């Protein structure tokens, strides 16, 4: 028993290292989906790809409105900052400041998801309308699922924070939730750039 965990006393904890490795696997998952998107786009004769006459007759339009997603992007970036604020506050031992940061981040995350769902209802194409529709809904859908997962993570951390479980020394879950939230934020910025901006 003497040997157990001898090396773990310095540097980051085992849980944190495990969490970072988990995030690395998440990066590879999105890497696979992004690779599919780039290959599809590189292969396409035009982007968006041409539609069949039947699709045009049905009113399918491969167009994306950029204003609302741009606002959503801003919301998510701000939520990343408030999340980091929560971490900095608990590092100083300020539980109240941390809770404010968590509340605001959670609220902004939910606003982002609502905006995303509203945006889906405004589009004139579905997942089966060419590779454009398929990649759009797959990428944004999996990202949205990760935002929902991250929001749930923040909610759990918030409840634990309300119970006073975090201190200046002991707040790993807050750091992990924050790292996860930054991760979904960065994925979204990449998605917003390639899906909405780069023509």
């Amino acid at each position, binding site marked *: *028993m*003497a*040997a*157990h*965990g*001898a*090396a*773990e006393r310095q540097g980051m904890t*085992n*849980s944190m*290292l*495990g969490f970072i*490795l*988990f995030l*690395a*696997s*998440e990066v*590879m*998952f*999105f*890497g*696979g*989906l992004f*690779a*599919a998107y780039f*290959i*599809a786009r590189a*292969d*396409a004769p035009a982007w968006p*790809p041409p539609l069949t006459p039947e699709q045009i007759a049905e009113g399918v339009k491969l167009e994306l409105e950029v204003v609302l997603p741009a606002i959503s992007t801003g919301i998510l970036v701000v939520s990343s900052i408030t999340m980091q604020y929560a971490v900095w506050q608990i590092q100083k031992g300020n539980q109240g400041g941390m809770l404010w940061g968590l509340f605001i981040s959670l609220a902004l995350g939910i606003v982002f998801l609502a905006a995303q769902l509203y945006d889906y209802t405004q589009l004139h194409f*579905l*997942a*089966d*309308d*060419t*590779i*454009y*529709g*398929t*990649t759009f809904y*797959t990428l944004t859908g*999996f990202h949205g699922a990760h935002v929902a997962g991250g929001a749930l993570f923040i909610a759990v951390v918030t409840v634990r924070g309300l119970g006073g479980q975090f201190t200046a020394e002991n707040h790993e879950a807050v750091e992990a939730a924050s790292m996860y939230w930054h991760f979904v934020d960065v994925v979204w910025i990449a998605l917003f750039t390639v899906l909405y901006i780069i023509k």
Partner: protein
Amino acid sequence: MATVAVPQLSGYHRPAVLDWITTVDHKKLGILYLYFTLFFFAVGGILALLVRTQLAVADNSFVGNDAYNQIFTMHASAMLFLFIIPVWAGFGNYLVPLQIGAADMAFPRINALSFWMLPPAGILMFAGFIVDGGAADGGWTAYSPLAQQTGVGMDMWIIAVIVLGMSSTIGAANFLVTMFRMRAPGMTMFRMPIFCWTMLVTALLQLLATPVLAAALVMLFIDRNYGGQFFDPNGGGNVVLWQNVFWFYSHPAVYIMILPGMGIVSEILPVFSRKPLFGYKAFVFATIGIGGLGFSVWAHHMFTTGSVLLPFFGFMTFMIGVPTGVKIFNWLGTLWGGSISFPTPMLFAIGFVSMFLIGGINGTYSAAVPVDFALHDTYFVVAHIHYVLFGGSVFAVFGGLYYWFPKIWGRKLNERLGKLHFALMFVGFNVAFFPMHMLGLDGMPRRIAVYADSAGWEALNMLSTGGAFLIAVSMIPFLIAVVMAFMRPKDQPDDPWEANTLEWATTSPPPHYNFDSLPPVRSERPLFDARHGDEAH
């Protein structure tokens, strides 16, 4: 050492079944992994016998075409996803904490989760046989558009493989943290046993490659069920995209399937040659090299698609032969001048080295682009994969079982039966798979259910089928040896083989907390040092 009677709490004892279901002990989970994977080895083996029976004679109608497609698909799926990949997690679970002198894995409960994801996935995959349209039948590679055209069994297969992938991804993170953070005092990275190093590189490959497979399978699922167009050229998709994302995982996966086997062999050879492993650091760097290069060779499965950069992927595939060749020299150098004995684990280890060498050579041979164009999708490829994964991995599994059986179960497997097992399996293996080289060169395509009498392939196919049944027969002495061992009391000492690594510094089997005390770790062979004192340095 480690013979002190452990004070037991009298009173409550969990019932055995509940204990096995709720355990988070790495040793018990390792044993569960071994039972689970060996069960699916048997299932996959029975499917293989069905395949070989169908192919034994020309114009055969033994199982029928549709059933044949399901059988060979599920043979490969069981052997790869439910046997070889998780069996290393079984050995790794049992051995890695012991070998680095830790009390358990870094995350015992996540470890239990990793294991308990396997049975539902295995059941789901095999439940395909009872649904309409049958089990997955698109080959384990599930190429599009074939994989789009098959029944619901394919969807069950996809979900099962995603779940198995999650299991191995979180398991990989667990192994990495365990080896990075839980090593005993004195156990530096370059004193870790070679098996741990191979598990470390395997875990890195799993962590980074398996999620890409999950992405590929998600795309396939969307294409099949939600009208997705990823692999459908009509909607701007690309069938070759599947092959790219699939092989981006599945080529590193062949190293996931072989590296821990190399680690086991590198544990066995030094013990029975009475020498340290020749070139420990070279072996470690070769393992890392294989892991790194493994990510740059996936398209050698796709030469004939005409859409990959042939010179690059051909060259990189040759390059991966270099670290692999380094390892062959490590093993030969270990044997060279050693005081060699031949108990059963040693036989399997030497069988591994010789058979894996053939598998390496015929693999590098078919990496040459013109050769690959001639041999693509022929039985030559089937011969290659079996020389690597059976002649390699399966021999290592049995070598590891014979070697660590005294540690895990406290009893030794009968030597005579073990040698009979090895002899039958070695001969059966070569009779079964060597003729496939000739069949491939003669143009026999893989995955066909029926061939014409006029093709002239019957004699070699019959020979191969005979070999397959001989492999099945070779399991009989193994099973008898296991039953005989369990009828005996646990009589094994701490270190029956005079081995080198820390798992032999505790009782056989170890107590649930692993070690009462650890010997000092001053080299990669702490037990050798403990036996011989400091004069060895």
